[in-house]
C-alpha cells in the first residue's frame, strides 16, 4: 500500500529541534551529554535559532495532555499495548505515565525535543533499558496481550526487533550478520540451505540484495553507511518480528539512503508494527500513520499524522510543530 505523498509546501528548517533550545534551559547543556550518551555519535548539528511567531511559554505539564482520539479502524490487530508506563534512572523520572497501543500495519512516529525520553521508552519495549543498572520501570507493556516480562528475553527480542541510530553491523561477512540473527543462540539448526534462503529473503526485503550482486561474503563493514543500515534492518526483520523499533534510523545517513529506507518502511509496515523515533518532522510526516509527541517525559499528543501536524490539540504540540515548520 502506498500512501500519496503527503509532504506539503511548508519550508523546512534545517535544524533538528530548535524549540528545545528556546524553552528548555537544560537543552542548551544537552549537546555535550548527547554526544557521549549516543555511543560516540557525531556531534549534534549546530543549534539554529528559529524565529517563532509567538514567544513560547512554559506550560504546566498536566494541563494539556490530550487523550488519544479514536483509532483508524483499517489497521490490523493490536500488537503492543503500553499501560501507564513510567521509566526512570535512579531518582529521575524520564517517561511519565505513558499509555498507547500499536497495531500491525501501523507506523507510529515518536517525536519530541531532545532528552524527552523517546529512546528510553523505545528501549524499554524490548527490555534493553534493563541493561542500565539504575533504570526502573512501572506499568505494563503487553505484546499480544501478554506482559513482556512473561516471555523469556531471547524470544521477546526476536519478536520485538530494533534498529539503532548508528548502523552497527557485526564485523563479519554480510551473510554471517544475518545468519547470526536467524539462528537461535548458536544452534546449528536450521541447516545451511534454509539459513541461506532466509538470508537472501531478508536482504531482498531490505532492498539490499540486488545491490550486492550476490557477494554475500563481503565484510559488512565495507558497505556504505546507508547499506549498513539496511543490512541492520535486514538483520532485524530476519527473525520475522511482530514489532520493529527504529531509533532515528536515518540520522546518520544521506538524503538518498534516507529515501530508500523510508520506502522500505512503507513496504515493511504491512507485516509489522513499526515504531520510529525521528527528529525529522518531514520524515515523520512522510512515513507515519500516527504520531506521538513527547515532551519532558509526557505523552502530550497522540493521533493520526495529519491531525497532529495540522490541527494539534495541545499547545505544546502546536509550538513544537510550528517551531520546526517555521
Amino acid at each position, binding site marked *: 500500500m502506498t500512501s500519496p505523498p503527503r509532504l506539503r509546501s511548508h519550508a523546512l528548517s534545517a535544524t533538528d529541534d530548535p524549540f528545545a533550545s528556546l524553552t528548555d534551559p537544560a537543552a542548551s547543556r544537552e549537546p555535550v551529554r548527547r554526544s557521549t550518551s549516543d555511543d560516540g555519535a557525531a556531534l549534534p548539528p549546530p543549534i539554529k535559532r528559529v524565529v517563532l511567531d509567538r514567544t513560547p511559554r512554559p506550560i504546566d505539564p498536566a494541563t494539556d495532555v490530550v487523550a488519544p482520539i479514536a483509532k483508524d479502524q483499517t489497521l490490523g490487530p493490536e500488537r503492543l499495548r503500553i499501560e501507564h508506563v513510567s521509566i526512570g534512572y535512579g531518582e529521575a523520572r524520564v517517561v511519565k505515565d505513558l499509555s498507547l497501543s500499536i497495531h500491525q500495519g501501523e507506523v507510529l512516529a515518536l517525536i519530541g525535543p531532545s532528552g524527552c525520553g523517546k529512546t528510553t521508552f523505545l528501549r524499554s519495549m524490548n527490555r534493553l533499558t534493563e541493561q542500565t543498572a539504575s533504570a526502573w520501570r512501572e506499568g505494563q507493556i503487553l505484546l499480544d496481550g501478554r506482559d513482556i516480562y512473561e516471555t523469556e528475553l531471547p524470544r521477546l527480542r526476536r519478536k520485538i526487533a530494533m534498529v539503532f541510530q548508528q548502523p552497527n553491523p557485526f564485523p563479519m561477512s554480510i551473510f554471517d550478520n544475518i545468519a547470526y540473527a536467524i539462528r537461535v543462540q548458536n544452534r546449528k539448526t536450521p541447516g545451511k540451505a534454509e539459513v541461506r534462503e532466509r538470508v537472501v529473503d531478508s536482504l531482498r526485503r531490505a532492498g539490499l540484495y540486488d545491490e550486492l550482486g550476490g557477494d554475500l561474503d563481503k565484510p559488512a563493514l565495507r558497505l556504505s553507511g546507508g547499506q549498513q543500515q539496511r543490512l541492520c534492518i535486514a538483520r532485524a526483520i530476519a*527473525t520475522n518480528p511482530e514489532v520493529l523499533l527504529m531509533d532515528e534510523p536515518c540520522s546518520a545517513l544521506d538524503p538518498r539512503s534516507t529515501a530508500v529506507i523510508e520506502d522500505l518502511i512503507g513496504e515493511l509496515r504491512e507485516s509489522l508494527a513499526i515504531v520510529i523515533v525521528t527528529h525529522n518532522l518531514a520524515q515523520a510526516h512522510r512515513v507515519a500513520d500516527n504520531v506521538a509527541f513527547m515532551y519532558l517525559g509526557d505523552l502530550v499528543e497522540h493521533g493520526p499524522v495529519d491531525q497532529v501536524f495540522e490541527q494539534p490539540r495541545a499547545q505544546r504540540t502546536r509550538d513544537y510543530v510550528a517551531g520546526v515548520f517555521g
Partner: protein
Amino acid sequence: MSSAPVVPRPVTPVPTTPQERRPVQPAGDSVRNWRLRHRIAHGAAWAAGIFVIAVTASIMGFMAWKGLHYLNPSLIWQRPTPGLAQGDTGGIRDPLIGTLLATFIGTLFAAPLGIATAVWVGEYGKPAKLARAIESAIEMVAGMPNIVLAIFGLAIFQLPFFSFLSFKAQGGGVYGRSFIAAGLIMSLIAIPLIYTATREGLAQLPAKLREGSWALGKTKICTIRTVLLPQIRPNIATGIVLGMGRIVGDTAIVVVLLGAALQIDPVGDTPGLNVLRGGGSTLTTYVYAASPAGEGNAPQKAYAAAFLLLLIVVFLNALVGWIGRRTKNSEITQ
C-alpha cells in the same frame, strides 16, 4: 588572554623542487636560540636515549658474538651431562625442551583462566564487590615476586594430596617438584598479562556491538563467544605472548619447583605423564649452572644457552609487535 606581541612570520619562498622542501619549523625555533638550561636538558635527553640504545646493542652484540661462536646444532641435540671439563658437559637439549614445556604448560593454564576471569569481570561483574576483589587479587599476583609464588607452590605441592603430581619417596615424603607443579605456578605470572589484555580489549569494544547482539535476542554468553571474543583476538594473542615471555624468563620458579636438575628426570612409567611428573631445568637455570657463577665449568655453553634464550624472547617480542601492527591495519578496530 596574554598579549604577546604579534611577530609577523617571515615569508618563505614557496619551494619549487622537492629537494627544497623541508619539514616546517616554527621561525626562530632552533636549538641555537634556546636557553642554556633547555639546551642542557635537551642534550641530556639525547644522551640518555643513545645510552639505552648502546647498552641494548652491546648486550645483543656481545651475546650474538659469543653465542654464534659456541652455538651449533650438535649442542642443541645433545643431552647435558655433569662433567668437570667443558668438553664432557654435553649439550643443552634438556633445558631447551624444559623451557618449551614449562612455557606450554604455563600458557595452557593461564590463557583460559585469564580470559575467563577478564570476561566475567568485564561483561558480568556482579556483585560489584566480588569483581573489585578479583581485580585487586590479580593486581596483587602481578606484583608478587616469583620466588614468593614458588615457595608457596612448593608448600602446596608437597602436600600428600598432590603426591600424584610429582615424585613420592619411599617414606611417603612428597618431592613437590615437577613440570606440572612449575607450570601451574608459572601460569600465575602469565595470568595478569592475559587478563589485562583481554579486559582492555573488551573495554574498547563499543556498546553498540553488544546491544546490537542483545537486541537480536542473543544471550550474553552467545554474544561474548560469537561477537566480542573474535573481535579482541589480537588483544588476547598479545597478552598470551607477553605472558609466555614472562614464563620463559623466569628462574626462581624453576629452581624451587622444577629442581633445576640438568636432565629431564621422568617419574613413573606412563609415557608423557612421566615427564610432566618429573623435574628438569630450563635455559635460565642452565645458564646459571653452567656459568662461572654456578658450577662454572661450561661458560661457552652458558653463552650459547643465553643467546638462545635471548632469541626466543626477541622472537616473542617481535610477535607482539607484529600482532599489534596487523590489528591496526585491519578493519576490525574501526
